[in-house]
């Protein structure tokens, strides 16, 4: 039997397994199986490729596989769930880097290629390079190795545009005559690495969820481009799936923040002071955890709105214990999770799942808002901007139009907060001054511990 046919048939099977794997991700019940099936597809693709008769040197390949697997398993086991955005940023970057290297090494192995092949190598190197350094900057910002503040300099957009144009010109020079244009390719490599850095440094830390989603999409597109380089369907199929996934997540995150993608990429959010706002009327009431307990104890339904402050305070486990006590007391408990509650899409869900909160208790913004007026107590923990009614009512507010969880419509709102400081966006929150709102000042974890103690006594 012809070996090439066997290989391509196996790639077809692997593609089907990837697609089925993603399909099973549509429910938490089947998701784990989906991941296995997808991994099986990858395993088949890799093993079959190793059998290819084109491969004559196995030593380096095995060494590379062993080293990579070791690092991969180790980091996957060690990483904390709070650091998942950093992990994903790194993995995106590595995917991009390998696309760049594949394009480069194919050229080095045989520089006498057609124009079309040269164009695919150019694209693979360009997209791979941008993905690599862009992800590294995103990783550094997320892990606070460098400041999360947007870094802007004058003429930045013009410079980036010029650099990109230069890349395109080099790409054309390279493709017209690939055999003798190695230096153009090197120029593209260097330029793409620089471009990746320049594209991400002007983006603020708060916008990183959008950036990782976008880079996720780039890493897929880079794999696609590498697929064109070696005329391999499975790279193209997989790359397209990932590219589509990244784009969907990017648009979801942009919508949740009420910003356009161009606005995220070029405006340097948080670098400008926000304009004037409507004056906030009302008075802040504060409550002790003991008073709060009496209300919670009598409540029929409680909605918990967690923000990233909850994770920072490491209060996921105590919040789970607290919600179980409420349920035992006959109260209906739900969690309302805003798309930007964590630091990447779905991050808060993972953090709560880690603490053992059942996934069917987690609801989305659109599910909870219509029933908000039936909620007895809405408990806001470490969230601020996502419950700010100014986004709905005050068209002069910087976050006007952003979809929010309408906590202010609940019968009672308890806000667990350290102080009256404003949130990430630096915007005052009229929710704190509403008549049905009370503040419970102090460390969220400590307050929850006090509440738990009250329920137990």
């Amino acid at each position: 039997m012809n070996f090439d046919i066997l290989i391509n048939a196996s790639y077809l099977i692997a593609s089907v397994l990837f697609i089925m794997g993603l399909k099973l991700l549509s429910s938490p019940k089947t998701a784990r199986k989906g991941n296995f099936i997808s991994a099986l597809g990858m395993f088949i693709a890799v093993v079959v490729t190793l059998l290819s008769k084109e491969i004559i040197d196995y030593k380096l390949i095995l060494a590379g596989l062993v080293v990579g697997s070791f690092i991969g398993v180790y980091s996957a086991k060690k990483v904390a769930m709070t650091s998942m955005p950093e992990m994903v940023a790194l993995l995106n970057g590595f995917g991009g880097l390998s696309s760049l290297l594949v394009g480069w090494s194919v050229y080095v192995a045989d520089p006498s290629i057609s124009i079309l092949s040269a164009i695919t190598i150019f694209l693979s190197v360009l997209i791979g390079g941008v993905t690599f350094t862009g992800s590294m900057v995103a990783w550094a910002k997320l892990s606070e190795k460098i400041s999360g503040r947007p870094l802007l300099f004058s003429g930045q957009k013009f410079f980036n545009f010029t650099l990109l144009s230069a890349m395109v010109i080099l790409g054309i020079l390279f493709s017209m005559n690939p055999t003798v244009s190695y230096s153009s390719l090197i120029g593209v490599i260097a330029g793409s690495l620089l471009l990746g850095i320049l594209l991400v440094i002007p983006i603020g830390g708060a916008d990183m969820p959008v950036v990782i989603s976008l880079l996720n999409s780039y890493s897929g597109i880079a794999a696609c481009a590498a697929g064109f380089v070696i005329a391999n369907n499975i790279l193209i199929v997989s790359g397209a799936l990932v590219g589509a996934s990244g784009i969907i997540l990017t648009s979801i995150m942009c919508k949740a923040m009420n910003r356009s993608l161009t606005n995220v990429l070029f405006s340097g959010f948080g670098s400008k002071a926000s304009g004037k706002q409507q004056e906030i009327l009302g008075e802040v009431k504060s409550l002790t955890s003991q008073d709060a307990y009496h209300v919670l104890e009598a409540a029929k339904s409680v909605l918990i709105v967690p923000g990233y402050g909850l994770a920072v305070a490491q209060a996921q486990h105590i919040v789970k214990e607290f919600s179980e006590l409420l349920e035992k007391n006959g109260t209906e408990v739900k969690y309302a999770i805003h798309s930007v509650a964590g630091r990447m899409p779905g991050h808060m869900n993972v953090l709560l799942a880690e603490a053992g909160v059942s996934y069917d208790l987690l609801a989305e913004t659109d599910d909870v808002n219509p029933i908000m007026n039936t909620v007895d107590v809405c408990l806001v923990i470490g969230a601020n901007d996502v419950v700010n009614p100014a986004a709905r009512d005050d068209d002069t507010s910087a976050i006007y139009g952003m979809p929010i969880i309408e906590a202010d419509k609940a019968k009672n709102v308890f806000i667990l907060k350290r102080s009256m400081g404003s949130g990430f966006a630096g915007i005052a929150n009229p929710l704190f001054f509403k008549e049905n709102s009370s503040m419970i000042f102090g460390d969220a974890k400590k307050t929850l511990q006090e509440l738990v103690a009250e329920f137990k006594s």
Partner: protein
Amino acid sequence: MDAQTLLLLSFVLVLSIFVGFELISKVPSTLHTPLMSGSNAISGITLVGALVSTGLGGVTLGTVLGFVAIVFATINVVGGYFVTNRMLEMFKKKEDPK
């Protein structure tokens, strides 16, 4: 590569994009982080490309570049699948109290 091959590959590309959009839009927001790390692992499929270009033997620079590509793509694949599995393991539904 000739235009015919390019066209065939583009054919696959376009259809896969449609399938991708169809599939991903069905993933609930609660699974978006595992989706991202899992799809990330899939994009490590460049590993296949890296294997081919390293195994060719011959030119030293090409082999070295291919080797480095293998290492990073493998981290991408293995790390991605493992961490996704670790996350998905945590998603549990409470057993119904009898």
